[in-house]
C-alpha cells in the first residue's frame, strides 16, 4: 500500500511536471512569443507577422519573434500571465488586475493608442445618461466597459448602487440588445457601432469623455526584457516602421490598412471609422510624450481604486496601493516594495531618436 502510494505520487509528479516548467525562465534566449487578440488598435500585430516586417527586425537583432493571434482576449492575457508568452497586448486596466495583480512583473513596452470613443454606453428609447438610473445594464463585468460605466456615473452624480449590472458575454451582446428586457448596454467597437445603428439606440456616453484613460499597450515580461534588450528593440522597431506605413496617405498605407480591415472582418471604410475613434500614437515621440505626461499617474490611480473597489486587485489586497505602478520620472503609485507594473518609455525613446 505504502509502496504503491509512493509510486503514484512519483507518477503524479512526472505528469504535472510540464505544468510547472511552463513559467518563463528569465535568461538570455533567442526565441520569443507574443500574443494579441482582435481589436482595432492591435490589428497591426497580425500584419507585422504576415508582412514579414517582424521577421526583418528580429533578424536584425539575431532573434526569433513569433506573433500569435488568440481568439479570446481574456484568455490571451491569462496565457501571458501563466508564462506561455513573453508579451501580450492588453489595456492598462487589465494589465494591473491580471498579470501585475498576479505577481508577474510587467512593463509597458509600446503604448499604442487610447480609446477615444471606441467604448460607449447605449440606451434604448432614452437619450440622457441620467436616465440610466434604476435600469439593468448589460455589460462584460470587470472589463473596461464596467470601468467606463463607473466613470460615466460619476459625471452625473450616480453610483453603481443606482442600477443593476448584468454580466453579459460580449459574443452575445448584439443578440441580447435585440431582446425586450435589455434597455441599456456598455460595450466596445465593433459591437458598439453595430448596436448604435439600431433605430431606437442612443449613445449617451463614450470614452471620448474620459480621454487617455483606456490605454491599449503591448505589455512584456519585465525580467525577459531586462535580460534580452534585443527583444524590446526588435518589437519597437518593427512596430514603428509599420506605424509610419499605416499612417501614410499613399497606396502602401491603404493596402496595409485594407489587410488589417479584412483580418478584423470589416472593410477599409469600416476600419477607418474605428480608427477615427481610436487615438493611435503613430510616432514614438507622441507615445513617449503621452507616457511621460502628468495625467498618467492620476489615471492609474483611478484604475487601481476602481479595481480595489470591485475586489479584483490581487488576493486579499488591503488597499488600492497594494500593487505598485512605476512611472517614467521614477515616481511610484502604491507600494514601492511591490512594483509589478512599469511604464518605461526607454525603448520607444530609442525609436524616437532613431537609435534602433
Amino acid at each position, binding site marked *: 500500500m505504502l509502496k504503491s502510494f509512493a509510486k503514484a*505520487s512519483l507518477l503524479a509528479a512526472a505528469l504535472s511536471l510540464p505544468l510547472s516548467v511552463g513559467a518563463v525562465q528569465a535568461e538570455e534566449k533567442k526565441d520569443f512569443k507574443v500574443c494579441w487578440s482582435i481589436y482595432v488598435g492591435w490589428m497591426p500585430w497580425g500584419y507585422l507577422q504576415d508582412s514579414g516586417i517582424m521577421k526583418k527586425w528580429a533578424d536584425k537583432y539575431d532573434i526569433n519573434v513569433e506573433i500569435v493571434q488568440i481568439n479570446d482576449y481574456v484568455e490571451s492575457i491569462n496565457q501571458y500571465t501563466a508564462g506561455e508568452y513573453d508579451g501580450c497586448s492588453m489595456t492598462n486596466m487589465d494589465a494591473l488586475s491580471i498579470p501585475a495583480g498576479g505577481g508577474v512583473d510587467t512593463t509597458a513596452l509600446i503604448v499604442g493608442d487610447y480609446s477615444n470613443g471606441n467604448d460607449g454606453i447605449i440606451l434604448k428609447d432614452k437619450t440622457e445618461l441620467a436616465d440610466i438610473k434604476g435600469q439593468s445594464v448589460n455589460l462584460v463585468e470587470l472589463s473596461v466597459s464596467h470601468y467606463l460605466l463607473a466613470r460615466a456615473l460619476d459625471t452625473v452624480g450616480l453610483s453603481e448602487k443606482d442600477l443593476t449590472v448584468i*454580466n453579459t458575454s460580449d459574443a*452575445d451582446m448584439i443578440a441580447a440588445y435585440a431582446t425586450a428586457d435589455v434597455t441599456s448596454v456598455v460595450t466596445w467597437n465593433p459591437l458598439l457601432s453595430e448596436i448604435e445603428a439600431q433605430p431606437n439606440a442612443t449613445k449617451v456616453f463614450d470614452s471620448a469623455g474620459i480621454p487617455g484613460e483606456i490605454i491599449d499597450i503591448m505589455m512584456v515580461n519585465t525580467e525577459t526584457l531586462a535580460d534580452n534588450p534585443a527583444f524590446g528593440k526588435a518589437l519597437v522597431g518593427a512596430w514603428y516602421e509599420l506605424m509610419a506605413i499605416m499612417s501614410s496617405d499613399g497606396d502602401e498605407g491603404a493596402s496595409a490598412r485594407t489587410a488589417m480591415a479584412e483580418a478584423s472582418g470589416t472593410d477599409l471604410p469600416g476600419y477607418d471609422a474605428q480608427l477615427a475613434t481610436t487615438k493611435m500614437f503613430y510616432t514614438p515621440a507622441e507615445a513617449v510624450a503621452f507616457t511621460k505626461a502628468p495625467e498618467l499617474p492620476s489615471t492609474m490611480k483611478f484604475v487601481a481604486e476602481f479595481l480595489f473597489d470591485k*475586489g479584483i486587485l490581487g488576493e486579499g489586497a488591503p488597499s488600492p496601493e497594494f500593487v505598485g505602478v512605476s512611472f517614467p520620472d521614477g515616481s511610484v503609485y502604491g507600494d514601492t516594495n511591490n512594483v509589478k507594473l512599469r511604464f518605461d518609455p526607454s525603448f520607444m525613446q530609442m525609436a524616437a531618436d532613431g537609435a534602433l
Partner: protein
Amino acid sequence: MRIINRKPSRLTALALGLLPFVATIVGYAIASHYRRLDNPADKLLPSLESMGQAFWRMAAIPDRRSGDLLLWVDTFDSLWRLGTGMAVSTLLALTFGIAIGFIPHVRSALAPYLATFSLIPPITILPILFITFGLGELAKIALIVIGTAPVMIRSTAQAVLDIPREMIIKAETLGASVWQMTVRLVIPQVLPKLITALRMGLVPAWIFLISAEAIASTTGLGYRIFLVRRYLAMDVILPYVVWITLLAFLLDRALLLISRRSFRWHHLGGDAL
C-alpha cells in the same frame, strides 16, 4: 488465484478508491509548489491553503458590495435553476415518453422528430432562445430543458417499449382500459427508469446551467466562475469546481438512494455503478 477472482477487502477497497484522489491532490500540490517557487503570487495553480482561504471568503464573509454570502447565494440560485429545469424535463419525459412508447400513432408522429431535435446542440441556437424567452431566468431554464428533455423522453419511451408484452396482454385480458393500464402498469414500471434517465440527464444539465449563467447573469455558480476568470482567480475557480462536483455527486447519490428505497424490486438483479 487469477486476478479476476481476487476481491479486495473493505479496507483495501476504500484505500484503492481514495488513491486516485490523493494522487491528483499530491500531483497538484507538487506542480503548484514549483510554479510558486518562480513566482510566489502565481495565479494559475494557487496553493491549497490560498484556495481554502478563498473558499472561506466566499462562504463565510459577506461580500463588500452586496453584503451577501456569495457561495450560498450562487449555490441556491444555481440549484433553483437546475431543479426547475430538471422538474420540467422529467414531467415532459413522463408524459411524452409514455405517449410515444405506448401509443403507436403518437410514436409515428413524434419519434422521428424527437430523434432529430435531440441532435441539435442547444448552444448554437442561443440567440433564438434569447429572443423567445428573454435574457432572464426563463431562458436559462429553457436551455436546460431543451438540452436534457429530448434524450430523457427517448429513454422513457424506450422503457415503455421494454415492458414485457405479456404483461400488457394480461392487463387487456383482465379488461383494463388504456388509462388504467397507464396508471397501474406503465407508470410503476417506468418510474425507476425515469430516475435513471434523470440521473443521466443531470450530467448535461450541469453543463447547460453553467453555460447559461456564463452568458447573462447576476448570480450563480457558473456566473461566478466566468466572472473571476477575467482576472485568472483560480483560487476561487478551483474550489467552485470541486463544490459543483460535490453537489452533482450528492444529487446523483440521493436519486440512486430514492430509487433503491422506492423500487426495491428494480434493483434485485445485481447492482450498477
